[in-house]
């Protein structure tokens, strides 16, 4: 029979039937069901196995605090372990599998652990796996790893997408129970921007699970009506299926919205979940309360659950775990469960009340002053043993037992900024107290107002207070107002294997053992026993552990204190923390103005920072990158090549103090640079180490264009802004990045001028005389387009850099190629660029590596002594100016066939090879098609005085030893004749 335990009523859509499977078996349920409620309706109580002892377990709760009923949901790449059946919304085709069992849920071989429980006590690992030490890595660790954990990962990439977003409000209300709904109504009607978030898919909280009335209608109807009104208010945003996972600084809350978890697969383009960052001026926590269990021997059998959860299943989901139910309570709320279930036709076997003066009932038997001392039933509850007031033992037959030990306010979010809750004696529970996150207030059961009336009233009042609303408070809807006192009853005297933490299998005995072994701090208790860890974070177990610990230590519970509550409130998918930032979307890319053209040419791209730069342009027949690169270098040096150098940082520096400013940021002088001239500049850090190099072109008396290396563009700009705003606040200087505004191409090679003369408008003289080496000018090209021309060279050839507004970059590149046909113009990429700069001995990122000084780079004399500049003073430190300081040199292998590797170290021709005898290291290496061999640049102690010396280049990592000769770093055109041609 299907849905044997389905009751009448409930908030489920019986007109629609949903099919689902659990461990491969088919079941039916309805929209509105959770996986747990549907399984219970189908008479399935056994849903999982416990972590350590593999004890059979069913749901303890009906909400997100669930420790037991955790399953693997879905299959394939979407398989998700450790999903709470109590919160998983049922959808058609849902498939769930039990976890942490082998071979099956009903017969689990690992349940042998339960028999060995005398050995597997708290601290078992620490005591057992101490010796022999050699066993740890090969034997113990693999075994523990295999046994550890609950669910399993699919080991496949998550096929779903996740979004992140931002929302702002005047008042964030967390929890849509009676307090939250009434608060939202109050704030919403007052016109405030309100966000109401609730983890449930149906707003209303306990109102949906109770039978009592609010304002002369059922609580559930009042909730539905209130939500409907809120939905009409444009200033109120309702966020169901949204868990506020953390309270962070400055009124920022993390909230995970489950957009598609209730669907088989997300709709096209839709995310599975969204992580909302909510900026709230004020926050009202209406998170409700969690019922607490009572510990007694074998209190973990499937069918034993919290009494109010039992009631929720019956009232909201029309489901019961069994047709014959007993209740074990220390308060009146347990009796409410008995009444509600009986009204639904469930047989109440007995209400076992610990209080001698518990009220009797005409409808069911009440055992006053009685306690449950043990239970029976291997895979599900069959009997409970009750010790009656007179000491006699009575066995009560039942398939389910509702347990109620009172309620604990959900204070978690109030403590996320290290606040501590305070103890309330009349509730025997922790309530929010101490320092709450700024802007947060608490209402309803979360604040200890356990009655419905109290929740409605405090919700409205708190909202008014938070928003500073004046005037007469609106009337509070009429609702039950049972007194909110609770008497503590944590565990049944004499119990031993009584579960406190059902997820981690921590018993009363374990807590006692922990105390016996000297663990006095509550934080130590947690780590030693694992109480309160794992996916439920001890929502139902912590207080019991604290109570027992307090008793053993002879202290009160508040003296023992609580462990720290940290985000996230409930388990959170890692994917939602990443959002869209995964794979190719991990970071944005930057494309050069010639990207489309380069792609057409079949360029091979390389990521440089976020930029995609053409690395080389292979031609048909070229099978190895070196063939392409060698060709590009040779062709450029023979005639003309073009390279997109837009990626170099460009910073526009203007103002009457622009030259003074550059004199400060560069170690060499700029004040006297003539308009129309460009100068190489070196920036030092405050500590005298080289930071970045580039050029500054003076386009006007009060305007320079500074270039930086591609990699350092952002940092240099940031540094210059710091200098401008903080070190030279009175100077008249303005900065702005123009990197992306201009498409800039290097045109290099002996025919570069001839090519450019076909592009540059004829009224601009770019002859050697009219436009000499290091000249710069605003010009026009192609019949009047504004452009900039710089005569600078990185390759060591006669070269120019030409810039046009980026939108024309593509057209200019195509024009250069067309006009350059007669010169066999060759586009070249970053590899050829790198080879040519090594051949020329120009320093780049490899040499400006954060440890080198101007002196090391052979530019010691560039650091001007006639002015003050950043880093110049500290560059004079003795440690940076020793006689045998590292100096940049060129390295040439004696044998043309030998390899030069960057990272290799330099040793004398003979002698020991070790760190103590280190002479320096290689920073850059390349095959030089111009020289027909590999060459390198490096730093060598006293390098300037060691030209011609033979050294050994060693790389112990790659087992390389090569003899190299120390030569000038300028392998090509050392006199610089070409660049001035």
């Amino acid at each position, binding site marked *: 029979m299907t849905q044997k335990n389905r009751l009448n009523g409930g908030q489920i859509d019986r007109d629609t039937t949903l099919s689902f499977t659990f461990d491969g078996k088919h079941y039916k349920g309805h929209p509105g069901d959770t996986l747990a409620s549907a399984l219970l309706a189908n008479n399935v109580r056994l849903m999982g196995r416990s972590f350590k002892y593999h004890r059979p377990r069913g749901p303890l709760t009906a909400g997100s605090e669930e420790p037991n009923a955790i399953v693997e949901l879905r299959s394939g790449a979407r398989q998700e372990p450790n999903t709470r059946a109590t919160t998983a919304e049922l959808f058609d085709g849902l498939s769930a599998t039990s976890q942490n069992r082998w071979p099956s849920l009903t017969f689990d071989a690992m349940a042998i652990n339960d028999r060995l429980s005398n050995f597997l006590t708290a601290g078992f690992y620490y005591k057992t796996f101490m010796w022999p030490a050699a066993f740890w890595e090969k034997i113990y660790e693999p075994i523990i790893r295999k046994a550890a954990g609950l669910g399993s990962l699919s080991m496949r990439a998550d096929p779903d997408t996740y*979004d992140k977003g931002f*929302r702002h*409000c005047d008042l964030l209300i967390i929890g849509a129970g009676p307090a939250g709904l009434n608060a939202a109504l109050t704030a919403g009607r007052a016109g405030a*921007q309100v966000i109401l978030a609730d983890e449930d898919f149906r707003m209303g909280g306990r109102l949906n699970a109770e039978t009592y009335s609010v304002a002369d209608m059922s609580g559930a109807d009042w909730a539905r009506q209130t939500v409907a009104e809120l939905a009409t208010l444009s200033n109120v945003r309702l966020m169901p299926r949204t868990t506020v996972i953390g309270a962070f600084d400055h009124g920022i809350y993390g909230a995970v919205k489950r957009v598609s978890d209730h669907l088989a697969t997300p709709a096209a*383009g839709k995310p599975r979940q969204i992580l909302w960052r909510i900026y709230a001026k004020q926050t009202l926590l209406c998170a409700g309360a969690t019922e607490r269990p009572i510990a007694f021997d074998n209190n973990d059998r499937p069918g034993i659950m919290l009494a109010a959860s039992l009631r929720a299943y019956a009232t909201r989901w029309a489901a019961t775990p069994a047709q014959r139910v007993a209740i074990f309570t220390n308060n009146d709320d347990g009796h409410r469960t008995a009444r509600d279930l009986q009204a639904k036709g469930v047989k109440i076997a007995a209400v076992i009340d610990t209080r001698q003066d518990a009220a009797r009932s005409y409808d069911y038997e009440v055992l006053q002053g009685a306690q449950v001392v043990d239970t029976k039933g291997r895979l599900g509850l069959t009997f409970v043993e009750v010790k009656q007031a007179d000491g006699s033992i009575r066995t009560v037959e039942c398939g389910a037992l509702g347990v109620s030990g009172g309620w604990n306010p959900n204070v978690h979010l109030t403590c996320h900024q290290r606040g501590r809750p305070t103890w309330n004696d009349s509730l025997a529970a922790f309530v929010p107290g101490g320092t709450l996150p700024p802007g947060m207030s608490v209402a309803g059961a979360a604040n200890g107002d356990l009655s419905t009336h109290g929740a409605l009233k405090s919700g409205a009042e708190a909202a008014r207070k938070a928003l500073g609303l004046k005037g007469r408070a609106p009337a509070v809807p009429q609702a039950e107002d049972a007194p909110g006192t609770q008497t503590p009853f944590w565990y049944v005297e004499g119990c031993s294997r009584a579960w406190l933490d059902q997820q981690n299998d921590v018993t009363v005995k374990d807590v006692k053992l922990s105390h016996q072994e000297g663990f006095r701090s509550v934080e130590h208790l947690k780590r030693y026993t694992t109480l309160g860890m794992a996916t439920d974070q001890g929502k139902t177990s912590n207080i019991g552990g604290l109570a027992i610990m307090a008793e053993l230590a002879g202290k009160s519970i508040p003296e023992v204190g609580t462990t720290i509550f940290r985000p996230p409130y409930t388990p959170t998918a890692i994917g939602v923390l990443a959002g869209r930032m995964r794979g190719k979307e991990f970071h944005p890319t930057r*494309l050069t103005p010639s990207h489309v053209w380069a792609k057409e040419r079949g360029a091979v791209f390389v990521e440089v920072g976020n930029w995609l730069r053409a690395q080389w342009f292979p031609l048909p027949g070229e099978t190895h990158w070196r063939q392409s690169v060698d060709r590009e270098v040779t062709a450029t040096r023979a005639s003309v090549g073009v390279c997109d150098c837009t990626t170099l940082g460009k910073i*526009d520096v203007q103002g009457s103090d622009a030259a003074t400013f550059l004199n400060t940021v560069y170690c060499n002088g700029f004040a006297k640079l003539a308009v129309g001239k460009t100068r190489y500049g070196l920036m030092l850090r405050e500590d005298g180490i080289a930071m970045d190099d580039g050029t500054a072109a003076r386009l006007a008396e009060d305007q320079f264009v500074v270039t930086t290396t591609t990699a350092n563009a952002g940092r240099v700009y940031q540094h210059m802004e710091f200098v401008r705003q903080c070190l030279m606040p009175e100077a008249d200087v303005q900065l702005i990045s123009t990197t992306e*505004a201009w498409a800039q191409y290097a045109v290099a090679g002996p025919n570069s001028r001839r090519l450019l003369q076909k592009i540059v408008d004829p009224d601009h003289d770019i002859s050697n005389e009219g436009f000499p080496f290091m000249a710069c000018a605003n010009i026009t090209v192609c019949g009047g387009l504004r452009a900039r021309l710089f005569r600078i060279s990185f390759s060591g050839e006669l070269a120019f850099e030409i810039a*046009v507004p980026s939108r024309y970059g593509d057209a200019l590149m195509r024009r250069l190629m067309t006009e350059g046909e007669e010169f066999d113009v060759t586009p070249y990429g970053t590899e050829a660029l790198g080879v040519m700069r090594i051949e020329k001995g120009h320093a780049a990122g490899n040499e400006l590596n954060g440890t080198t000084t101007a002196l090391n780079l052979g530019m010691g004399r560039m650091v001007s002594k006639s002015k003050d500049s950043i880093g110049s003073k500290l560059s004079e430190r003795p440690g940076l100016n020793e006689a045998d300081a590292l100096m940049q040199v060129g390295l040439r292998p004696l044998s043309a066939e030998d390899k030069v590797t960057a990272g290799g170290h330099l040793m004398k021709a003979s002698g020991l090879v070790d760190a103590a005898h280190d002479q320096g290291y290689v920073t850059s290496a390349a095959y030089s098609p111009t020289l027909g061999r590999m060459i390198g640049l490096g730093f060598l102690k006293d390098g300037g005085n060691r030209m011609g010396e033979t050294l050994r280049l060693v790389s112990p990592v790659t087992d390389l030893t090569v003899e190299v000769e120390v030569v000038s770093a300028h392998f090509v055109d050392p006199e610089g004749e070409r660049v001035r041609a």
Partner: protein
Amino acid sequence: MHDLTPITALGGSAARVDSVGDVTLTEVPDVALASVAARRRQEAACAQTLERLLGTAVPLPGYAAEGAEYAAFWTGPDQWMLSADFNGYEDVAARIKAEVGDRASVTEQTDAWVCFDLVGGRINAVLELLCNVDLTRFETGRATRTSIHHLGCYVISTNAGQSVRILGPRASADSLHHAITTAMASAL
């Protein structure tokens, strides 16, 4: 007149248009931009000149202003971005420099940015997935610097809840476009 053919920031010959539901994202290449930063001790004079160009007061922090020829939004202390129709104002920087003279530093910014207009009844649903702007108070005429997909962008409210203009770094136009269209598919 030169003979080089421009391409848009997204690499096409025409502006890209994408629609999801009633929201449309349009690439707007015909925007000429220039940054204007007052010279030291010339702040008041610079603002006065800009007021004349705009025909209205210079925008305060967090705001934009629109005149007949030029529009502007605040980018920093005594610093604004001015925009004009590219057709006819391609030389926007030179034109403004001619007006402000030594009272301000002017830098051409036209092709430093990609410009998108996001228009439609539910743009806020898209924007809230993209940037940390308080949309409950993003009235017409508000302008802000914000981060979209790790990119520093400007967002200008041109018609509250109905249309915004987004300026992002031109070289990352593809990434920005992808981020916006993905958010459109997700939100709408």
